[in-house]
């Protein structure tokens, strides 16, 4: 029977922290790039000459899964967490921009019409209608991507892009399943904690603003 090597929990904790850092930075930077791109991709705000090319670029970015982006960046910038962060950014940009432009396109046309009828500029329309009407969805997507990116970051180490995945693949290759199990337990606990935190944030900030009601956390 495989013995779980509990003394490795310290190493696992610090490598998990590195993974979370990668996911956090990747998510924040990716989302910051994705938001303006989502505005340029929305059909109800732009002409086809603007949204067409931007959507094509986003589709090209989404073609590769994050593990392929990681392999590409490992070749370009070398082994380590930086390649992992770049891969997460690319993946986040492709997906969040798509999800967000779909949200923008489904914004109720009544506030858009009411504010447009005043003769405001497009930037004012974005600031006063698009931002507040899509903010809760945007926060929701950000949480989802962070959750997803933590899981993704855990395996990017397989191709040498840093994080806890590096240790998991190393121990599996050497048939050290007891050691690999320790790292996998840490990943599981982290994902459960993040999932729990996401639910709390959604209840407090997102459901309330989407439905105009308070949700009592149980």
């Amino acid at each position, binding site marked *: 029977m495989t013995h779980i090597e509990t003394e490795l929990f310290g190493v696992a904790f610090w490598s998990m922290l590195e993974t979370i850092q990668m996911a956090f930075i990747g998510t924040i930077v990716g989302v910051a790039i994705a938001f303006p791109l989502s505005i340029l991709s929305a059909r109800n705000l732009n002409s086809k000459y603007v949204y067409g090319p931007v959507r094509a670029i986003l589709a090209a970015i989404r073609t590769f899964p994050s593990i392929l982006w990681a392999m590409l960046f490992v070749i370009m910038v070398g082994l380590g967490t930086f390649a992992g962060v770049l891969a997460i950014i690319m993946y986040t940009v492709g997906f969040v921009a798509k999800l967000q432009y779909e949200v923008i396109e489904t914004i109720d046309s009544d506030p858009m*019409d*009411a*504010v447009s*009828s*005043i*003769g*405001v500029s497009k*930037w004012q329309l974005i600031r006063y*209608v698009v931002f507040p009407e899509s903010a809760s969805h945007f926060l929701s997507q950000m949480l989802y991507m962070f959750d997803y990116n933590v899981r993704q970051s855990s395996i990017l180490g397989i191709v040498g892009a840093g994080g806890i995945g590096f240790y998991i693949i190393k121990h599996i290759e050497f048939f050290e399943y007891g050691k690999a199990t320790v790292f996998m337990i840490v990943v599981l606990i982290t994902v459960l904690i993040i999932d729990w935190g996401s639910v709390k944030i959604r209840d407090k900030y997102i459901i309330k603003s989407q439905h*105009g009601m308070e949700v009592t956390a149980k």
Partner: protein
Amino acid sequence: MTASSSFSEISTKKIIQMNDVSTSYDSKNYALHGINLSIDKGTNYAIVGPSGSGKSTLLKLMNGMMTPSKGTIKIDYQTPNMNNKKFKIMMHKIGYIPQSLGLIKNISVLENTMIGALPRLGIIQSFLKNFPEEEINEAKRILKLVGLSGKEERKAYMLSGGEKRRVAIARALMQKPTILLADEIVSELDHVTAREIMNLIADAQKQMNLTAIMVHHDMQLALEYANRVAVVKEGQKVLEIGVEGDSIVDFQTGDLTTEEIMEMYSDESKK
């Protein structure tokens, strides 16, 4: 007829003119057909008709949100079209309250009201929501006027139906408008609240010498508050009534009593 609904100082300048205006969804189905309207500056004009008669389309033609497929429209000598730069500047002074009100639910009452002032603000100023002190004071004054003093920081989704209508009116008044277009804004309200909102608009109209064009479903309400009432049915104007004090004049068929007009409208609605 209430005191607030009488307007003595009315200019004869034609601020809105529609000649033979038609709009169609396709070559066979017309939303409006051969509409002629001439509205004097300062008039309280009501458009009444059953659901689907084209009342809201008329308003959207007046603020440039829609363009006619046939005929001409002039708003203060300008053709309403969002691509017309001169008209776009004029849009700053046309307050429009859609039936759904068009409020931004996740922002405060004050911010919703400040939207009316956006054409007067610079890009950076409006982006950072760095509103000038005098504009904030003006918004607070208008909110007090519409009875929302003390609720400036409340989010729009927290308000009652009547309060939401007051915010939409405040947003329109914040534009310092010359024309106010309102689409059935009291149709879902109880009798008392509906009169409160109508009195509010009538008072604002009197103070600001506004031209108000209001779409109603309720003929009684239209006769109570308007100087002129157009009845629209199946995309056509079937009647236009001038209201002077307590008497009603049908310019097409001669003098009619209020009861006769009501009876006619009632018959039109049933068809």
